Every structure is written in C-alpha cells, then in structure tokens.
C-alpha cells in the first residue's frame, strides 16, 4: 500500500467499533429518550402502502441478498488474490528443484563449481535463490521502520499529549499531505536528490543502496505510524493521566511512564503495520536501491528487494515459463509475510481494545 494514509489504518485500533456505540450522537439525546433497537421490516405499516406488503418484503429480501453479495466482495477478492498467486507459485515449487531456492552453483574461470546465492533466472543455468531478495527487503524495511518509528512515535505523542488544538490542526494536514505524495515522486526524489545528498555525507561505495531506499520508505511510513500512535494515545482513558498528575508527576513523566505504557499495544501494532508497509513498498526501492542481488548485511550496499524484483522482471517473462512462475512465488512469499504481519497487528489491537474497555 503506497501513498495516502487512509482511514483504513484507523479501522484497526479504533476501540469497540460497534454500531450502537458509534452512532451515538454527541449529546446523547434521542427521540423520545428511549434507545431501544427497533426491529425492521416486520412492523405493521401505518400509512397506506403503495405496493402490497408481500411484494415489498420480497424486494427487501432480494435487496439484502444483493447487498450481502457486495459485502462479500472484499472477502472474495482476497480469496481470489490468494488463489491466483499461489496457483502459479505452486507451479514454481513443482518445476524448480527445492534446493535452488536457497542457492545454486556457478562455474568459475578455472572450471570449478562454486556455490552462490544469487537471483539470476535469465541464463543457461538459472539461479533462483530467495536469500538475497528476502535479506534485501529486510535490509530496507528494518532501518525504515526504525527511522519512521522514532519520528512517528515522537510526532504521535506530541499530537496526542502536548500540542494545542491549533498546532494539531496545522500538523495533521501536513502529515496527510506527506501521505498523499505518490511513491513514484518520492522514489524519483530519492534517485536524483537524496542519493547524492547521502553520498556526500556517508561516502559509501554504492551511491544507490539500502539506506537511501530506507529513508525514502520511511517518508511513506511516518504518516501511518504517527496517526496510529495518535489515535492510540487519545484512546487511553483520562483518569490514568489524572491519577498520575494527582501524584505530582510532570507531563513528560505522565507520558513516558503512564500513557505510553498503557498504549503500548497500539504502538506495537503501529510498528508492525509500518513494517508490513515497508516490506510492500515497490517504486521507491526500485529506483533507489541499485537492485544488486547480493547477500549482504551492510545497509550501505546495494540490495535487491522482493518487490523490485517482481516489478523489474514481470514485464519481460513469457507467460507459463519457470521464470514467470518463480516471480509469482516471490509474490506469494511477500503476500504471506505482509498478511501475517497484518494478522499479528490485528490480534494485538483487539487485545488492547479489550484491555481498555475495562
């Protein structure tokens, strides 16, 4: 997911999303003062119906079924993505020997065989090692989450606990603005301006490397983490803060020792979701990391991520071949990792919701 921070991200930690509590008007007033839920279509009609009641009920029933089908759309789409991804991916597992996914052999200039871990599917002896790709994705995502986590956490705390209404109204739109910048623009900025800047500071061997990519990706994740942390901390009940102040704590002590620990699940979820976003980022890493499929733990080296591999190669494979299937396998691995991260984040959030609802 790239670009705008949508309210989707806030769908996760919003406490107790239930119809009855969310549609409560602010003042709490209601017609007649009663809050009974009224049953629907079975009620007798007071005014003369334009159509026989049976027809109306049939139409209602049909309508509800149509709406139900639309509601299933999201589930259906996720299932379809799952099926079509894994169908091709399984082909890859079938056709390519399993040990090749770890590493293969190359012949050196003296004729000896050498064990290598490379992703080079194009050639007489194709290499399908996933190791450099997964490592590459992590080498970009982890520093990105560290940078964005620090900035996002600080910003979220500032917005929720310290900023006045006016400052908040200034900073929130700016965060949304950052979230709205298309990732190709950020990638372009990294390729042309940021890489040169960082090269001047760090004097790395490769001008395009994982760190450049990580900084670019962090720009995309900062809004995600900041707004989630902000929502989380605002949901922490007020009496905790009041109790802390009553005992003489300063504001910072209240924040650091009471509020943030209370919201730690939300903060963790924010970081996990940010990690998922970082792993899924494509255009920035395609332009900024140099795309060298090497096994390295040095973030100042050029790396090749899973996403960039798919983006760079899918357009040029004949359909149905081994290379084509292997790209779907990379996609399936990526999908599984981000799916798992989302799941973990949701579990963390639902546990927090239950804790705070007390």
């Amino acid at each position, binding site marked *: 997911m790239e670009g705008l921070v949508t309210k989707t991200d806030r769908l996760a930690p919003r406490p107790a999303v239930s119809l009855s509590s969310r549609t409560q008007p602010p003042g709490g007033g209601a017609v007649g003062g009663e809050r009974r839920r009224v049953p629907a279509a079975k009620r007798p009609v007071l005014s003369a119906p334009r159509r026989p009641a049976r027809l109306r009920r049939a139409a209602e029933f049909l309508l509800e079924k149509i709406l139900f089908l639309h509601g299933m759309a999201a589930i259906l789409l996720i299932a379809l993505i799952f099926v079509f991804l894994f169908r091709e991916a399984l082909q890859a597992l079938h056709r390519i020997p399993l040990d090749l996914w770890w590493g293969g052999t190359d012949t*050196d*200039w003296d004729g000896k065989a050498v064990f290598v871990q490379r992703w080079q*599917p194009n050639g007489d002896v194709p290499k399908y090692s996933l190791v450099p790709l997964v490592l590459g994705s992590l080498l970009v995502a982890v520093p990105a989450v560290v940078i964005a986590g620090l900035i996002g956490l600080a910003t979220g705390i500032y917005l929720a606990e310290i900023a006045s209404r006016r400052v908040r109204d200034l900073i929130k739109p700016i965060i949304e603005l950052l979230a709205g910048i298309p990732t190709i623009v950020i990638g372009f900025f990294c390729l042309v301006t940021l890489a040169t800047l960082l090269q001047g500071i760090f004097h790395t061997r490769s001008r*395009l490397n994982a760190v450049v990519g990580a900084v670019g990706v962090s720009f995309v994740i900062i809004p995600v983490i900041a707004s989630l942390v902000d929502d989380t901390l605002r949901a922490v009940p007020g009496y905790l803060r009041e109790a802390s102040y009553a005992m003489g704590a300063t504001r910072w002590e209240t924040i650091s020792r009471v509020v943030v620990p209370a919201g730690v699940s939300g903060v963790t979820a924010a970081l996990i979701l940010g990690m998922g976003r970082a792993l899924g980022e494509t255009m920035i890493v395609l332009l900024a990391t140099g795309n060298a499929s090497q096994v390295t733990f040095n973030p100042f080296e050029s790396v090749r991520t899973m996403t960039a591999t798919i983006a760079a190669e899918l357009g040029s494979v004949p359909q149905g071949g081994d290379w084509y299937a292997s790209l779907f396998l990379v996609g399936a691995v990526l999908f599984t990792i981000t799916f798992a991260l989302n799941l973990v984040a949701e579990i963390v959030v639902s546990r927090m919701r239950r804790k705070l609802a007390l």
Partner: protein
Amino acid sequence: MKISSVARTAFAAASAAILALAPAAALAGSITVKGSDTMVVLAQRWAEEYMKKNPSVTIQVTGGGSGTGIAALLNGTTDFANSSRPMKPEEKVQIQAAKKQLFEVPVALDALSVVVHKDNPVSVLTLTQVGKIYSGYINNWKQVGGPDAPIVRYSRESSSGTYSFVKDEVLKGRDYASDCQTMSGTSEIAEVVARDKNGIGYGGVAYFAKAPGVKIVSIKKTDSAPAISPLGPNGLPDYQVVYSHSYGLFRPLYVYAAGQPEGEKKTYLDWILGPDGQKIVEQVEYIPLPKK
C-alpha cells in the same frame, strides 16, 4: 432521490455501451513495437518520423528490454519485437508451436561499448578482463592497470538483450557478480558511471558516444590483438571496425515478427531498411547496415 437513480441508470447504460461497442471498433492502422531498451531510442525516432509522413498510421513504442519484446511476441501482444540479441532456440520453438513462422531481420548494427568514468586512467581492456570483472573475479582497478580502488559494477536488468549478449559472449555463460547493480536502462548506466569514479558499465554505443563524464574503453579481442575503439576520430561510431568485425563487441540489432509482415507493417519495415530509416540510425549514433 429520483434524479440520482436516473443518473445512476444512465451511468450504467453508458458504461455498458462503452464496453459493448469498443470491441467493434478494432484498432485500425496501429502498429505495436515492444522490446529492446538499446533500440528504444531508435524505435521512438523511427515512429516519430514515420508518423509525421504518414499521419494515418499510429505506431506505439514500449521499451523494457529485449526480453520484454520477445515475451510479448510469444504472448501475441505485439507486432514487432526489437531485440539486441538473437532469439534463443527455446524461444523459437514457442513461435513454431503457435504455428507461426519466425521472421527475423537485422535493422542496424551496434558496437557494444564498455564505459568507465572519464578520469579513470584505464583505457584498454581485453575481453577476458571485462568478463572477469563482471563475473566478480577481478575486483580492483589495480589488477587491470588502474588505481588501487574497488571496481563498482553497473549492469542492466536480466530482461535486457544487452545483458544476455554480454553474459553469453563475454562472461561465456557464467553469472554476473552478486554485487552488480542493475539499472533499468542504458541511459541510467551512463548517468551513474559519470558520477562514480570507480564505476564500469556497458551498453549500446549511441548512449555513450556523446555522453559527458564517461569514457569508452578500447577492446582487445585477445591479449595479442590490437586495441580497437568503437569510436572514430570524430567521436562518432567508426563504421569500418564494425563492418570488418575487428571490434570485438559488434552485434546486429534485430526486429522480430511472428509471420511475414503484411500491409502497413511491411511498408513500415521497408521504410526502416530504406535510406530514410537508415539515416535516422546514423543520427541516433548507431551503425547503419552496410550498403550493398
């Protein structure tokens, strides 16, 4: 509410109409060209000039690498595939399986160039040295007569015909080194090598002949052969070293089609092979086909 339901029905009707009528309007007079990044600058110029003279024809050009073009040809989604490498046997088999006859014609020649930063003292390399550099067995410039500095390798993506050509002809089938940075296009290689004192790159000569900041290296086919540069004294490609095959990295640039081209496509291809098309090859700084 009545207005919105009318609007909604009209909307739905319009969309249905678009989708229903669209297939009936076939894309008449349109030629699709996909493939080689080496040739995309040429293909785009050809398309531009030809469309100026023949406004009724539309030519659509997409790059992405020779592999992209050939894959599109095999998938049936392009009319012409530009390729800077010859088609592999397994690819030819797939065309035959589709009951089409493979049509192959060289449309220009290229002197594949190896470039280094303009301040790099190394000006001559043997083919073996280039091969060992790119497969990771020579890692420092001092091993080839330069300063004591690590070699930073820049390569093309594996979809590139140039990538395949170098892998087959120079690396003799071996893999590229793991730390080869892969760029999406040859012009990106020109740009990064110009910014990197220790960089080395390769690509079609048209991208490097007048590029500031890079220097084209002369190639020795063997240790005892003379060092030949693809450029002549005027800084433009030297046609003679290519025609006489004395430059070690010459290669034809191909256009492939599935089946014999007919009608407009044939006219376009004939125009490319004719004097107008070949003049554009000269202007773009590739090497035109030798005149019979």
